[in-house]
């Protein structure tokens, strides 16, 4: 099959490459594509068609049509006609239940014809109704092209690149190259992209090849697929030089292996020195196709008949074959034996990208093609895409004779025949846009490149109108199939680690996700950790807290307006708890606010809320015109919470600060050196025991962590994780925003009405909360406990049953080792929100009785915290 060395061929005969096809080795040359090498090895059937499983062979050799799609190294739907060979590649055919030459599913072509018209399963398989799942299972397994290997994992790495250029030229034919050269002469920054397979003439300007422009989007954004990189081009000016596409003719047997587009055969000869067939018939629609006859002869193909469709009017064409391969063709009754039929009608300008950008498309009746018009600003078209395609044949819609024996395909991607289209019209789908959706014509992998014009023409004939009336369907991206990986980009799973992360790992912590943060769930036994906090001393890394500095003369007034409670009267070195709400009155975040001096506040947020809160602060700052300065110091500062009865003793050992209860009271904030590290010491009690939060520059984190654990060893210090903290905070009924509240919760109903200071003129959420107060609470967040000794805990999200109906939900629940019973927080109807109320919780497949508790379970009066 391979011809002798030819000038200009793209293959390098000294470079031998071997890949496997169905497990058997195939020899190729460098510069070959998998498709050209398979053809050289004698392979003629490349795929099985979508619906009828008919054998299909090379057709366009340009990566447009679906005929050569195979699975390469586990990646389905690779167009092997343009996929360069690589050593050791594993190539497998797809959409076939046996092997390419003998496909069990081909039975649909032989007997299914009358039973499988377009839309058949919507009509025939819906009765009886209960059988549909069975039919559907079969249809789903039979439908679709290619199989994704679910166990393959990530093999390819995709990346995204952004580039800004003055001029982007799409298409590297003569006109495209000339446009790029002119831009370069003008001194503009120009890039040319071309999809191949022919190489682009290089004249000094940058060329991306092979690379395919997927679409033209708003703002002259052109995403370009360049191998595994998606290059997002922003161009001041776009030159579209996408050329024209050969259109197949519609006649019975037009999909047989051996029926090709002239351009495909030309590429075979010129690029890969292949002889496309032994005996050829050429049905030429333009001068290019006509000129191919000479090239074929030179390549050793006997050209038995050439028809110039512009001069000679054919009425009937029918191709016949055996086992799906072309054996002869009949032209108006004259039968000619051949194994290659090169047939094309018009060359249709590839206007899709222009239409996506907003150009109008109009029908040129004289030449029988659609041409773009009214290009938007910043977009230019050059060359054949403008309609400069020379004189082309205006062919009939179909060349069907009365005695046809085979199917005539309007769309080879989706196996839509001319009969399917006629049927769709007969059923009332008389608009092309509707018929497209019903028959799926133009919706296959070629995206209408090879079926758009023929289907419009067929529609015009069948509805007895003209092509201009039918018009085109809307052009949408992508212009060519794109792998989802390319759109998804590089797989990222960003993780934030605190500056003590390695210490947690060394201690054998079980890590968990909280938002993007990695945090220790526990260091083994969370209940024991919780007990240590009650009995002696615990240490937890709370560096994940959001930390903001709010500074300025108006800082106090600003916080006063943002929070429902008061901050203007907060004294320097004191701390207050605050709940941040929206103007709809909903709880969005909570944290503590320490006043460091008259004009400086230190605000902590939840671990996952830091970014939202700082955006929120900055937005209101802009809305109100406060000149407040906010700084996010979340990453700059690390933080630990030292909690337990022995915490004062340990802190006292490490600092000169007077840590007595008189000098460092509950909710005091002091700056001090702790073990030589400058710290902000916040006496807060999230976990219920006497405790101190130390916030300090994160580079000291490991040192301070080690020092605290070392110096506190004799006091029984142990690190504790998030799970222990969750048990401890639940014992205090401290809420977790986002866990115990949702996007509908307001502070009045979430058990914090004391927080809202109505006497303030205004604060974010005041107007909405006034209306909530007026209507009264509907449901409330309360604590609950279950019977002592009950071993199991209700699920978070579990139901509270009221009068036999769902009436509330559990938001948090844990078994408290301190109390020896399950405790939790739940939303209940207001009439049940009183101390001691009985509630019924659905759990363990049955119901358990719980009791509402409005005060913290542990240290209800806060005596421990203040002592």
């Amino acid at each position, binding site marked *: 099959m391979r011809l002798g060395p030819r000038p200009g061929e793209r293959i390098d005969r000294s470079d031998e490459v071997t890949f496997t096809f169905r497990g058997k080795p195939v020899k190729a040359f460098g510069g070959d594509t998998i498709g050209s090498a398979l053809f050289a090895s004698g392979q003629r059937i490349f795929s099985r068609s979508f619906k009828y499983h008919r054998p299909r062979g090379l057709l366009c050799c340009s990566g447009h049509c679906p005929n050569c799609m195979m699975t390469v190294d586990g990646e389905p739907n690779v167009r092997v006609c343009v996929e360069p060979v690589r050593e050791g590649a594993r190539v497998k055919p797809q959409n076939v239940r046996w092997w390419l030459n003998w496909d069990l599913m081909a039975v649909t072509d032989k007997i299914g014809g009358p039973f499988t018209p377009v839309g058949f399963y919507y009509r025939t398989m819906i009765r009886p109704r209960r059988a549909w799942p069975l039919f559907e299972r079969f249809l789903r397994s039979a439908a679709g092209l290619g199989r994704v290997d679910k166990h393959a994992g990530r093999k390819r790495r995709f990346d995204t690149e952004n580039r800004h250029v003055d001029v982007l030229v799409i298409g590297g034919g003569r006109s495209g190259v000339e446009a790029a050269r002119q831009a370069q002469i003008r001194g503009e920054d120009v890039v040319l992209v071309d999809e191949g397979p022919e190489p682009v003439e290089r004249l000094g300007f940058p060329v991306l090849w092979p690379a395919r422009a997927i679409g033209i989007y708003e703002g002259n954004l052109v995403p370009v697929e360049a191998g595994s990189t998606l290059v997002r081009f922003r161009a001041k000016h776009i030159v579209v030089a996408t050329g024209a596409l050969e259109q197949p003719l519609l006649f019975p047997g037009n999909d047989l292996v051996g029926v090709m587009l002239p351009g495909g055969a030309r590429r075979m000869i010129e690029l890969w020195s292949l002889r496309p067939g032994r005996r050829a018939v050429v049905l030429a629609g333009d001068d290019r196709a006509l000129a191919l006859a000479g090239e074929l002869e030179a390549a050793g193909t006997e050209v038995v008949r050439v028809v110039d469709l512009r001069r000679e009017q054919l009425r009937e064409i029918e191709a016949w074959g055996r086992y799906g391969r072309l054996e002869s063709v009949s032209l108006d009754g004259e039968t000619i034996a051949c194994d290659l039929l090169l047939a094309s009608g018009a060359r249709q300008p590839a206007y899709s990208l222009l239409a996506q950008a907003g150009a109008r498309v109009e029908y040129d009746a004289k030449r029988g093609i659609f041409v773009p018009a009214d290009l938007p600003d910043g977009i230019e078209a050059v060359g054949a895409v403008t309609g400069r395609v020379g004189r082309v044949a205006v062919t009939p819609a179909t060349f069907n004779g009365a005695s046809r024996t085979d199917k005539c395909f309007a769309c080879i991607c989706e196996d839509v025949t001319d009969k399917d289209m006629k049927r769709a019209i007969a059923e009332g789908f008389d608009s092309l846009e509707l018929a497209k959706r019903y028959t799926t014509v133009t919706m296959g992998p070629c995206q209408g490149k090879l079926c758009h014009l023929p289907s419009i023409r067929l529609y015009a004939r069948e509805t007895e109108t003209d092509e201009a009336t039918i018009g085109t369907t809307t052009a949408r991206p992508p212009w060519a199939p794109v792998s989802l990986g390319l759109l998804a980009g590089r797989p990222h799973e960003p993780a934030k680690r605190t500056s003590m992360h390695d210490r947690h790992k060394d201690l054998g912590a079980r890590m968990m996700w909280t938002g993007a943060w990695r945090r220790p769930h526990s260091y083994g036994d969370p209940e024991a950790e919780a007990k240590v906090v009650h009995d002696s001393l615990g240490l937890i890394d709370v560096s994940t807290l959001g930390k903001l500095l709010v500074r300025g003369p108006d800082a106090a007034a600003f916080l006063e307006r943002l929070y429902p409670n008061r901050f203007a009267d907060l004294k320097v070195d004191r701390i207050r708890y605050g709940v941040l709400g929206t103007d*709809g009155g909903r709880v969005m975040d909570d944290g503590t606010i320490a006043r460091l001096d008259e004009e400086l506040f230190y605000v902590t947020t939840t671990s996952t809320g830091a970014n939202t809160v700082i955006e929120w602060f900055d937005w209101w700052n802009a809305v109100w015109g*406060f*000149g407040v300065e906010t700084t996010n110091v979340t990453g700059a500062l690390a933080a630990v919470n030292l909690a337990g009865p022995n915490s004062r003793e340990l802190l006292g050992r490490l600092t000169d600060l007077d840590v007595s209860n008189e000098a460092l009271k509950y909710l005091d904030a002091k700056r001090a050196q702790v073990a030589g590290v400058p710290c902000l010491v916040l006496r807060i009690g999230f976990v219920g025991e006497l405790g101190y939060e130390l916030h300090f520059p994160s580079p000291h984190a490991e040192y301070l962590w080690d020092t605290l654990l070392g110096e506190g060893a004799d006091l029984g210090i142990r690190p504790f994780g998030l799970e222990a903290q969750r048990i401890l905070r639940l014992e205090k009924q401290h809420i977790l925003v986002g866990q115990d509240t949702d996007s509908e919760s307001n502070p009045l109903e979430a058990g914090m009405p004391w927080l809202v200071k109505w006497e303030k003129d205004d604060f974010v959420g005041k107007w909405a909360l*006034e209306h909530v107060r007026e209507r009264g609470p509907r449901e409330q967040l309360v604590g609950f406990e279950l019977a002592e000794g009950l071993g199991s805990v209700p699920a978070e999200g579990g139901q509270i049953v009221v009068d036999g109906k769902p009436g509330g939900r559990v938001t948090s629940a844990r078994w408290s080792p301190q109390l020896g019973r399950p405790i939790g927080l739940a939303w209940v109807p207001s009439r049940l929100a009183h101390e001691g109320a009985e509630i019924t919780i659905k759990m363990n497949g049955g119901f358990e009785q719980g009791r509402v508790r409005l005060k913290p379970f542990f240290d209800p009066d806060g005596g421990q915290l203040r002592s």
Partner: protein
Amino acid sequence: MSFLLPCPNCGPRDVNEFAYQGEVTKRPTQSPTLRELSSYLYFRENVAGVQREWWYHRLGCQAWFQAERDTRTNEVLATELTEPVSAEGAPGPEATPALGENPTL
């Protein structure tokens, strides 16, 4: 959406770098009726034309600014940072957005 939005600090950038906060609205200054409150919280002018809106350059300089954008074409006519109302004192509760009222109201 893939238009370019000129950030007052950073210049034209891909719109995906920004967060959109919606139309510039007028916040009630006194206790509103339920209807007024609902209208402020949930109803927007949604004009087919030029509107004034809030944007945040989340993946850039992290500044809030206002833009005048034609919702039909995504053409951005102007963008500007809002200025603090007063350097020394806090504005009263009657303060409106620094750049004045929503032109569409």
